[in-house]
C-alpha cells in the first residue's frame, strides 16, 4: 500500500518561481527587479520568502519583512495558507514555467490571512488535527506532545523529509489500518474548498474510489468537462481514496483535489 518512492517524489516536487517586485509600489527598486527561486510544492509561500525578501531589501535600501508584502498572480490574490503546489495547479492552467508572481506591498487584502510564522503554524496544525479527527477521532494527535506537533510544522518549514516522517508515520499508518473518514478537500479555482465526510469503504466493503468521493461533495458534477488534479498529477477517477490518503496527501495529512474546467 505504501510506496516510499512516491512519498519522496511528492516531498521533493518543486516549482520554479519568478518573483516580480511591483515597480509602482517598490518605487525605489534598482535593477534587477525580479528574483528566481525553486519552491517546494508541499510548502507554503510565507515560509519560503526570506531569500527573496532579503534580495528585495538590499535593492530598495529598506528592511522588507513577509508581513509587509502579499502575492498576486493574474490579478488573483494568492491564498498563502494553501500549499504552493495546490496554488500553482489551481491558477496556472496552461502549465507555464517559471511561475511569474507579482509581489505587492500596498493595500493588504482584508480577506487574506496574515503570514506570520505563528499563524502559518496554527493553520497547518489545525488541518493536521482535523485530519486526525477524521481518521482516528483525534486519538493519535492527542497522544503526541506539543513538541512533536511543532516538529511536523518545523520539518516542512525546513524541508526535512526524515524529521517529518519520524512523527507523521504515526498519523499516517497505524496497526489496525482502520480509518473512520478520509481527510480530503475539493477545490475549484476562485472558491473556498468543499469538505464532506468520506468513508474509506462503500456499503459493500469495496474501497471508495475518487469518483464516488467527488460525487458526494459535488453531486451534480459532469466529469466530462473537468480535469481532476492532485499534486500536479491528473489522478484517475478509479483511484482508491485510501491509497491517495497514504501516498498523495500533503504534509497537513489532507488530500487536496483540484477540479479544473477543461
Amino acid at each position, binding site marked *: 500500500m505504501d510506496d516510499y518512492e512516491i512519498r519522496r517524489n511528492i516531498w521533493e516536487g518543486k516549482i520554479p518561481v519568478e518573483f516580480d517586485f511591483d515597480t509602482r509600489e517598490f518605487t525605489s527598486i534598482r535593477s534587477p527587479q525580479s528574483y528566481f527561486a525553486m519552491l517546494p510544492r508541499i510548502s507554503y509561500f510565507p515560509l519560503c520568502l526570506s531569500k527573496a525578501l532579503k534580495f528585495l531589501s538590499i535593492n530598495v535600501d529598506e528592511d522588507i519583512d513577509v508581513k509587509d508584502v502579499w502575492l498576486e498572480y493574474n490579478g488573483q490574490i494568492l*491564498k498563502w*495558507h494553501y500549499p504552493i503546489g495546490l496554488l500553482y495547479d489551481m491558477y496556472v492552467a496552461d502549465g507555464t514555467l517559471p511561475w511569474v508572481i507579482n509581489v505587492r506591498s500596498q493595500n493588504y487584502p*482584508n*480577506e*487574506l*490571512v*496574515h503570514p506570520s510564522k505563528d*499563524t502559518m503554524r*496554527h*493553520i497547518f496544525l*489545525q488541518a493536521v*488535527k*482535523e485530519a486526525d*479527527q*477524521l481518521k482516528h477521532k*483525534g486519538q493519535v494527535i492527542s497522544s503526541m506532545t506539543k513538541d512533536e506537533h511543532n516538529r511536523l510544522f518545523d520539518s516542512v518549514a525546513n524541508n526535512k523529509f526524515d524529521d517529518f516522517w519520524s512523527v507523521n508515520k504515526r498519523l499516517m499508518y497505524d496497526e489496525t489500518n482502520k480509518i473512520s*473518514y478520509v481527510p480530503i478537500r475539493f477545490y475549484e479555482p476562485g*472558491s*473556498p*474548498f*468543499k*469538505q*464532506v*465526510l468520506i468513508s474509506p469503504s462503500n456499503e459493500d466493503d469495496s474501497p471508495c474510489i475518487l469518483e464516488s468521493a467527488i460525487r458526494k461533495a459535488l453531486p451534480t458534477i459532469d466529469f466530462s468537462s473537468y480535469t481532476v488534479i492532485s499534486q500536479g498529477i491528473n489522478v484517475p477517477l478509479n483511484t482508491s481514496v485510501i491509497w491517495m490518503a497514504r501516498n498523495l496527501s500533503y504534509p497537513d495529512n489532507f488530500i487536496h483535489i483540484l477540479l479544473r474546467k477543461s
Partner: protein
Amino acid sequence: MDPWIIHKNNLGVWAEQRSILDNFVRTCSITYNSAYGVPVLWFNLYDSDGQRITLGSETDNTTLQKLSVYKNLISENEHPCLGMAFYNLHPCHTEELIKLLSNEKNYVIKWYSVVHPYVLLPSPPLNFYKEA
C-alpha cells in the same frame, strides 16, 4: 445590534451578525464543523475605513487590549463558507470546554455559554443548529 441572519451557499450554512463595538464594526459568524461535530464562532473587527483589524498587534485601544487577553484561544483561519480570513475560537478547544459543562442538556445553550464571555455576543440564533 443587528439580528442574526442565516445564510446558505454551496459550501454550507452559517449565521451572521453585525454590531458596532466602540468605533469598530464587528461581524460575527457561526459555522458548523462536520469533522468535530461542533459549532465554530468566527469574528472580525473593521475600523471606520472598512479595514480589517489585525488582532494581537500593539494598540492603545482598550477594547483591542481586552481581546488580546484571549489571544491563546483565538486564531486566524479561512471562513469555510466565505473563503475570507476571520478570527475564530478553535473547535478543538470548544469540545474540551463543553465536556466541563455536563449538566446542561441543550447543546447550543452549552456552547453559547462558553463562547459568550469572550466576545459579548447578542442572543444566539437557536434555529441555526437545526439548519446546520
